[in-house]
């Protein structure tokens, strides 16, 4: 199962829970399960999040595969530049 | 108020135009003579993007009235070099990658050409002070200064 790290201020929407294990093959599946587990986070996920999978940052990308031992860091969507 | 009738030469060609009494040379060049090489970056003489020469003197064309140029010789970037035979300044700016967006480039070329006409062997400091009226936001000036110095060397016949 992937280790999911909810980063920083997003923890306000998970009741303070910062790390959890989620069984998911893709980012889309992971985000769906995350939103179901933490409904307060659903709005943020809907608006968009960035994900770091084993250190590489992805913007959404629903079908990015997630390995069984992966570390996935969920961050607010990075926009601008 | 009626328009003013003006005769002048631009890049060696005789031109004749009507302009408003308060219309600046930059607008005359761009809107009436279809010479859009000179750019308006500020309209207040601070950026140098509209640089042209008027009877050989470097001016900000946004601060000169069209009505003032009766009988004058104006040179713009369009009169400097051709695609087949670029002026050394144009060539060295390209070779040194001394332009990024290119909006300041026409003004830099006109201003630098006026400098080299007056001082064929300027120091780095002299080039920097002469071009202090030509703002460039992309390059940090480094490559522009190098290009002007190497163009000057070539024009003097130094092996640069």
């Amino acid at each position, binding site marked *: 199962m992937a280790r999911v790290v909810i980063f*920083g201020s997003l923890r306000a929407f998970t009741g303070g829970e910062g790390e959890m294990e989620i069984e998911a093959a893709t980012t889309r599946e992971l985000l769906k399960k995350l939103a179901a587990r933490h409904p307060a986070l659903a709005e943020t996920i809907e608006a968009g999040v960035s994900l770091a999978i084993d250190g590489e940052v*992805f913007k959404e990308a629903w079908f990015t595969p997630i390995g069984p031992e992966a570390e996935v860091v969920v961050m607010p969507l990075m926009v601008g530049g | 108020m009626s328009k003013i009738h003006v005769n002048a030469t631009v890049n060696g060609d005789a031109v004749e135009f009507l302009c408003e009494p308060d219309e600046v040379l930059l607008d005359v060049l761009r809107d009436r003579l279809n010479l859009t090489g000179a750019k308006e970056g500020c309209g207040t003489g601070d950026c140098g*993007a509209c640089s042209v020469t008027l009877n050989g003197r470097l001016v900000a064309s946004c601060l000169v009235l069209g009505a003032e140029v009766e009988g004058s010789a104006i040179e713009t970037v369009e009169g400097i070099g051709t695609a087949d035979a670029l002026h050394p300044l144009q060539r060295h700016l*390209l070779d040194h990658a001394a332009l*990024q967006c290119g909006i300041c480039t026409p003004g830099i070329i006109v201003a630098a050409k006026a400098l080299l006409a007056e001082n064929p062997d300027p120091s780095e400091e002299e080039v920097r002070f002469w071009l202090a009226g030509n703002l460039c*936001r992309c390059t940090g*000036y480094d490559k522009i200064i190098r290009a002007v110095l190497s163009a000057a060397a070539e024009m003097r016949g130094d092996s640069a």
Partner: protein
Amino acid sequence: MKQDFKVLGTRPIRPDGLDKVTGKAMFGADKSVTGMLHARVLRSPHAHAEIVSIDTSKAEALAGVKAVITGDDFEDVDNRWTRYTMQNCMAQGRALYDGHAVAAVAAVSKKVAAEALALIEVTYKPLPHVTDVDEAMAPDAPVLHEGVKGRNLGDDVSGNTVGYYSFGHGDPETGFAEADEVIERTFKTAAVHQGYIEPQACLADLGADGRGELWCCTQGHYEVRRICAEILHMDASQLRVTASEIGGGFGGKTTVFIEPVALKLSQKAGRPVKLVMSREEVFRATGPTMSASMDVKIGMAKDGRITGAHARLRYQGGAFPYQMVMLGAMSAFAAYDLEHVQAEGWDVMTNRPKMISYRAPGAPMAVYAVESVVDELCQKLGLDPLDVRIMNAAREGSKSSYGPTFKAIGLVEALEAAKAHPHYSAPLAPNTGRGVSCGFWFNFGGQVSVSMAINADGTVNLIEGNPDIGGSRASISMMAAEALGIEFDRVRTIVGDTASVGFSDVTDGSRVTFAVGIATINAAKAAIKEMCKRAAMIWEIDEESVEWIDGAAHAVGHNAGTLPPMTLAEIAATSGKTGGPIAGHHEGAPDKAGVSFGVHLVDVEVDPETGFTAIKRYTAFQDVGKAIHPAYVEGQIQGGAVQGIGWALNEEYIYGEDGRLQNPGFLDYRIPVASDLPMIEPVIIEVPNPGHPYGVRGCGETAIVPPLAAVSNGVARAIGARLYALPMSPPKILKAL
């Protein structure tokens, strides 16, 4: 990863260069068409006011006026972010800052348009205003928009506070307890403008048949199309947007300010409308970057190890909700491998023009505050500032302060290059100080489309959808040539309009060379596959027995050596007989952009009589992954460094008590000029990005990040006193002396 390059690393002349040195290049304001009208915009003189009424009748009656519009001419839109953009382009109900558009006119000439503006009568009822970030955050501040307060915020901050973010790990307090020295400081930085030399300009033509044409200077014409189509309630397909040559953007042209206004005027007048901003309008009404108020606390052990770090960043982003402090909070400590770190940020609205991105948006000010405190700790503990940074530097495997664990990065390499550079050991003159700072930017990927055609004469045309702001047509042609195995000058790349190639995200986040580059390499692969197939058909062998090597199809396997290689030009020449035109295209959304670190060294001389700071020597080290066109990479580093120098020393939005901008011109808002500067020596470090086939990282933004602290740290060491606010103008330095 590819290592041996034939085209990458060379310095060909840019394809757009000839037009730019001869005055032929067409920028936003350079296009005119038959029947065109000229537009002007009327702007609010108040920082905050209710628009009680606007009487346009006299303006409409003026001979030569063809259309007048106000906020009432714009229908509401569903997307709230688009609504903010629309209301920033034209106020509805309230003017929210000095310079906010309230009406616009299209007329037969610039002169008539200007006369008509003077005839528009607006009745304002001034409202309380706020322009300072700390005042705007206070619970009793006048609130710009109700109902947009960040949902994770309490009553201790006002409704202007639209977002709160926090990043980090460990517990800073534990870290401070382990420290031998702890320093906490408060910093302020001014809002600065991108300062592109070309003011916003566009030419709009929206016909009665509902079809629109828009020519404009922008960093993203697909984004312009999306916003304008939503505001004008058009189908995206009916609005074709063409990006002109762009006279600088630096983030400032990633949104719209005038395009919806010009389109609406054109629709109303039934004629094409040209709208060009004046420099004053650019300063008053286009986005500067955020101003900031920041607290940074860092603890350090005697040996230089950073034990704990905490930053609180309060950014002011103007008159509408926005989201940008997050990137500052993520960048603040990115250069360090820390056990106990936290960075918090608040986005705050004020009665100022709405902020828009400026090169590495959000990062320079946060890093300035952090790098200043690190430098002060080094001074206090008598430690070498580069040694301390090397000791604490983030490297491959470090858990970054913003979450991800870093892959291969080049910070240590940049720091060590700085340490070994002659600049670092050169003697210093009197009144001179040497400043050091790190800098960081994420770099983005994002959506991209590329279409490549192999012409029958063996040349290649490539269409991409991202405006070229830094020489990307050259670098993309280089990558196409490299991938195809042909000469650079056989490829011509153009930026297509929104009707000629698929969607592409805005040119931002230093993403173009990375993302368009990947799409180009993939498009070339598709074309190569087709060319190998054609060769196989001609040779009457299996497609699998053909490989593409150095620009030609080669028979391999049991046919190897029996057939002479068939070049791209040869295959292209017969393409009409072998199945028709050969092309390749790619659409995608590449990620894994790879972060970029920089380290800057500067020597500053401060005149004790006048407080004037002169930059005497400047060296900038940056990891760029792989420099495709090294001269353009150098140019990015030099240009970014000088923008940062301007931020450090001169540039500043100055507001009076009345909430009006006091310096909307290049005379009073002073960007660096040639005589202010020495040569800027760029040192390119190449630690390949594992996420790109050629190792490329974005390189355009990182260089604006280090100069703020580097210059400030140099000043501190030159005068023996430290300033905690930017810009460090001569009066402020004299005061510190």
